[in-house]
Structures are given as C-alpha cells and as structure tokens.
C-alpha cells in the first residue's frame, strides 16, 4: 500500500516536530514563506511515506493528512 503525506499549510506553524517524528525522513521544511510568515513542512520530492501517521500524531496544529493511495 502506498501512502501520501499532505501538509495543510494554512495551519502549519513550522515547528518541525513532524520532521523529527518521521522514521523515514520523508518531511522537510519548505524554503518558501506562507502568507503568515511560516516556513511550512513539506514532503521531500520522491520520498516514500509508509503511512505510520507518527507525524500526524505529534503535529500540534492538525496540519497533516495521511492518504492511502488505492491501487488503480
């Protein structure tokens, strides 16, 4: 099963807890500022999310979604 992590940047405050929590190093901090001056987390291009939801669990702002990609 493939997974995808999505960051809801409107909630993200750039605390980096998700980056620290990810066992696979999937997340990194964006270089670009959001309109409230935050560098939000983002998935690294090409990195493979395993769907463990640890980043979702530790996120203080409920700014993360984990999606299961269904076979097509």
């Amino acid at each position: 099963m493939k997974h995808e992590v999505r960051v809801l940047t409107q909630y993200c405050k750039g605390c980096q807890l998700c980056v620290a929590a990810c066992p696979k190093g999937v997340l990194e901090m964006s270089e670009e500022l959001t309109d409230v001056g935050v560098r939000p987390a983002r998935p690294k291009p090409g990195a493979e999310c395993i769907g463990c939801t640890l980043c979702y669990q530790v996120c203080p702002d409920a700014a993360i979604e984990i999606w299961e990609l269904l076979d097509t």
Partner: protein
Amino acid sequence: MKPAEAKLKAGRPRLLLPDRTHYCAGCGHGVVHRIIAEVLQEWGIRGQAIGMAPVGCAVLMYQYLDIDACESPHGRTPEVAAGIKRARPDKLVFSYQGDGDLAAIGTNEIIHVANRGEPISVIFVNNAVYGMTGGQMAPTTVPGQKTTTTPKGRSVTAEGYPVRVCELLAALEKPAYLERCVIGSAKEIQRTKNAIKKSFRVQRDLGAFSLVEILSPCPTYWRVPPAKSVKYIETWMEQIFPPGVVKDVTK
C-alpha cells in the same frame, strides 16, 4: 486532490474547527485539542459534550472545538463544570485547565470538587509556566527553571517546590482515576488519548471524578526550539512529575 484514488487515513477531526489556532509553534494545547475532538467524534457524542475553558492560554478552546462550551473565572473552572454537571447530569462535562488555573488560583476549587467526587473529567495541561501572561513562574515550575519572575531560576528556598497535583488529589477518597501523561512522542500522545477516553468512561460509567494531568510543551517560554521540547520534558519535568497512573479504582 485525488478523491477517487485515495482514502484519508489520518486527518483533522471535523470537531476541530477549521481555524488556525493562536497557540505558538510546538505548543502542546493543539495536540490535546485534537485528541479531545477525535475522542468525541469517534464516540459520536458531540451532542453530549459540554466543555469548560479556563483563563490562560486555553481560554480560546471554545473557539476551536465544535461543542457547547462555557468560560469561567480564573481557577473556578471545576466548580463551574460541577454546576453544569449537577444541572445536566446526563451530559459529558469536562474542564480544561492549565497549571495556573488549576494548581495556583484554583487549588481550593480542584481539591473540593475532587473531594466531593463531582462526576466531571478534568484535563489538566501542565507546562510548568504561565504562557498567556508572558512566561511567569507557575506552581508547577521546576526547581532551577528560569521564568520571567524567577530570572535566576526557581529557588526552592524562596518559592517552594512544584505542586504535584495527582499525588495531592490521590490523598482524597473520592477521585476514581488520576493519571499523568505526556505530550511527547507519538506513543506518549496515544497514551494520553487513551487516558482521556478512560476519564470520560469513568464519568459516564462510574459517575466519578477523574483527572488526567498532561505534561505539555511550551517551547516559547522554555526558550527551546519545539523539536527539543520533548527532551526538555524528559530531562526536567518527568523527574518531578513521573508519568503513570497515580490512582485507579477500576483496577
């Protein structure tokens, strides 16, 4: 984005309203809010819940949770909650309190509400500092911890030792369940969620008082980056406030 090809495995609970919170980056309140929203949603009891917000950082809790809620004067939170519960005994009533609210200005209230065994759930967020007012000493500030009113660190000679609320309440007959949890690793956060569920069950099934103390990060006033706050709790707080079940009559 790909609704037909993907299924949401984990995401914001609906009861957590689509607001960007006022909390600082890395603050534990957001996690506790999300946990409460998840539990109420999983159990399908939005319509049964009435929450109490305290004075302090979490005063705006009612801004973020899609449930009936009430505000109280600083520290009186559990008594206002008890008043609601006495009037609506069939509802799930919880108070959400910080360390200043619960362990300083509201010490009298929490002790007597616990002593009467009022069947409410108290969610006690202990971050060892006053956040809303600018980082002053809390009753739970640990020895040596620098705050804006203990600039050289808390001195036990001058300011005494931190108040251990769970242990204090465990001396009373009526509290049914007291547990101390941590907003740290995902595993600890899951344990916190289970504790909140248990507290709600104790209220519903036993009609008894319970309290879940949550050691929670305040990176801003601990003056550490959010990613180091987990280590901070382990190093500084858990020595004084050991996590675990302090009292449980269901066992």
